[in-house]
């Protein structure tokens, strides 16, 4: 990569003799992940950028070709580790689509709650880190308390915090505990005030606005051509959201709006994310209300061939023992088929392209990772801007190295 010639021409009116080559990353503290960009700069202005990716490539697609389906869920955690539950659910929904499994409404709503919590956690990090990169650490430290609360909710449901492996093919591994619901209630009650205060810190902050408005702007046409999805595309003014376009997990039962921006710059991305957090809060509230009218003991579908039986039954019942053994050994009967399933990840359309030949592992599994696709635009976004704008632009794109490199 280093010996690759960049098209370096000093811009008109430059007072420099030559451009300077600057290696930004791969382990720069301001890049929030393993991203390398070789910048050619004219003074403080970026003339060109070449992005290098793949530093934490772990060959998940290859590994998935040797694993039984239920063991692939933990691989998906490690893609977008800021919102692991969305990835888990995306994968589980893909397998359920392949197998034609119908979930009870309560399972769908529980999934919606957990996915929207994950979306809030992800947006929270992205928006507050934009504050950090423009010099305001306070907001970041302040909202971190509530990301912690979300992680405690995950912990209450599945036992882990960052790489969650939440949910199973056919439902959840166990019912949500009263403590989990109490924590979700606490979050719903306390978080709006915090989010409002966080927005007050930055939204109309003169320094923040000057640093983000017009930085890394992209038009709707270019954004579509570059394959942008998620908040980054919506900031450019295109109202595409998988939750509305192809509803999954009963999103059609909820009433929410899709915030869009106009200019597609870093400030609009920030605004879209904040607005989406309000929408997510409203979705969680609606889901909590809907749960009240549903039987409280349903947390999985009745699909014994794919969903692990109660441990009690494994010791006492023949069928339960057989299914338990088959599922754990990865010998559950999978159907052959070809399926593409997409969910609205926190940073865009997260797609799973699965080809099954009926064997114990997928014949081919491909992850459509949103940030791998839109990171291509980075060179174009930062060109002509200042070096400090490149940092803000990167954090506003919500790039997650684990997802980018798969």
């Amino acid at each position, binding site marked *: *990569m280093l010996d690759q010639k960049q098209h370096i021409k000093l811009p008109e009116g430059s007072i420099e003799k030559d451009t300077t080559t600057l290696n930004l990353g791969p382990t720069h503290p301001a890049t929030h992940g393993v991203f390398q960009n070789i910048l050619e700069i004219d003074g403080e202005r970026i003339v060109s950028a070449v992005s290098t*990716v*793949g530093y934490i*490539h772990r*060959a998940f*697609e*290859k*590994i998935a*070709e*040797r*694993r039984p389906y239920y063991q692939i869920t933990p691989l998906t955690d490690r893609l977008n580790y800021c919102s692991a539950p969305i990835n888990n659910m995306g994968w589980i929904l893909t397998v359920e*689509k392949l197998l034609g499994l119908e979930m009870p409404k309560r399972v769908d709503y529980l999934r919606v709650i957990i996915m929207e919590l994950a979306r809030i956690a992800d947006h929270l990090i992205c928006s507050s880190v934009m504050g950090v990169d423009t010099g305001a650490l306070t907001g970041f430290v302040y909202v971190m308390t509530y990301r912690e609360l979300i992680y405690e909710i995950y912990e209450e449901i599945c036992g882990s915090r960052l790489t969650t492996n939440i949910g199973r093919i056919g439902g959840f591994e166990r019912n949500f505990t009263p403590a989990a619901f109490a924590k979700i209630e606490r979050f719903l009650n306390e978080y709006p005030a915090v989010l409002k205060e966080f927005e007050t810190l930055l939204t109309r902050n003169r320094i923040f606005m000057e640093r983000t408005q017009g930085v890394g702007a992209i038009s709707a046409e*270019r954004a*579509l*051509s*570059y*394959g942008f999805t998620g908040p980054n595309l919506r900031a450019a003014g*295109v109202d*595409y959201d998988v939750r509305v*376009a*192809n509803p999954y997990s009963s999103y059609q039962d909820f009433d929410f709006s899709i915030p869009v921006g106009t200019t597609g710059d870093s400030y609009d991305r920030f605004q879209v994310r904040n607005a989406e957090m309000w929408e997510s809060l409203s979705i969680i509230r609606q889901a909590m209300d809907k749960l009240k009218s549903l039987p409280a003991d349903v947390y999985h579908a009745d699909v014994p061939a794919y969903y692990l039986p109660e441990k009690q039954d494994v010791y006492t019942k023949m069928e339960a023992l057989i299914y338990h053994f088959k599922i754990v050994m990865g010998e559950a009967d999978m159907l052959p*088929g*070809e*399926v*593409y399933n*997409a969910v609205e990840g926190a940073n865009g*359309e997260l*797609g799973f*392209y699965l*080809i099954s030949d009926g064997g114990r592992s997928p*014949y*081919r599994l*491909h992850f*459509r990772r949103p940030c*791998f*696709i*839109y*990171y*291509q*635009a980075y060179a174009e976004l930062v060109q002509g801007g200042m070096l400090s704008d490149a940092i803000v632009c990167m954090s506003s794109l919500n790039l997650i190295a684990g997802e980018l*490199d*798969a």
Partner: protein
Amino acid sequence: MSLTNERIQQRLTEKFGDVLTGFEEPFGLLTLTAQKDYNLKVMQFLFDDEELRFRFLTDITAVHYPERKNEELAVVYHLHNLQDNIRLRLKVFAPVAQPDVFTATKLYESANWMERETYDFFGINFVGHPNLIRVLNVDEMTYFPMRKEFPLEDSMRIDKDDEMFGRGGNV
């Protein structure tokens, strides 16, 4: 008013005839196969046509079928018409001995890295690509790791002498 799979198939067959085969709809997603040299023409038509308007490229990837002679590698495109909200899957088969397929970078900027990734893992040679080099693997790599001739170790094997990890040699 809204576009249906039948209508798309009808429009495409009118235009291309025998070039397109294998129409099917797994899980409601219209899937079709184009002859190798026609992938770009078909995509250009899908892009330009005022009725079809497939102007968003969702994904490019490839699949290796070692047992299919002379069409071992399949390149799979997922296209999306955002106005009518309908998706389409286009496949092109190429022989592994000479996997040349035309690039889609002229139509979509996003195809650039997706094709680089597909080249990186399957060795598909995208003819006309501006910068077809590896993207995720190291540049020095001499093989295409996602092809089926490189299987991962079978986790069920028992013949391995690996006492450190609890698998004795004399099972």
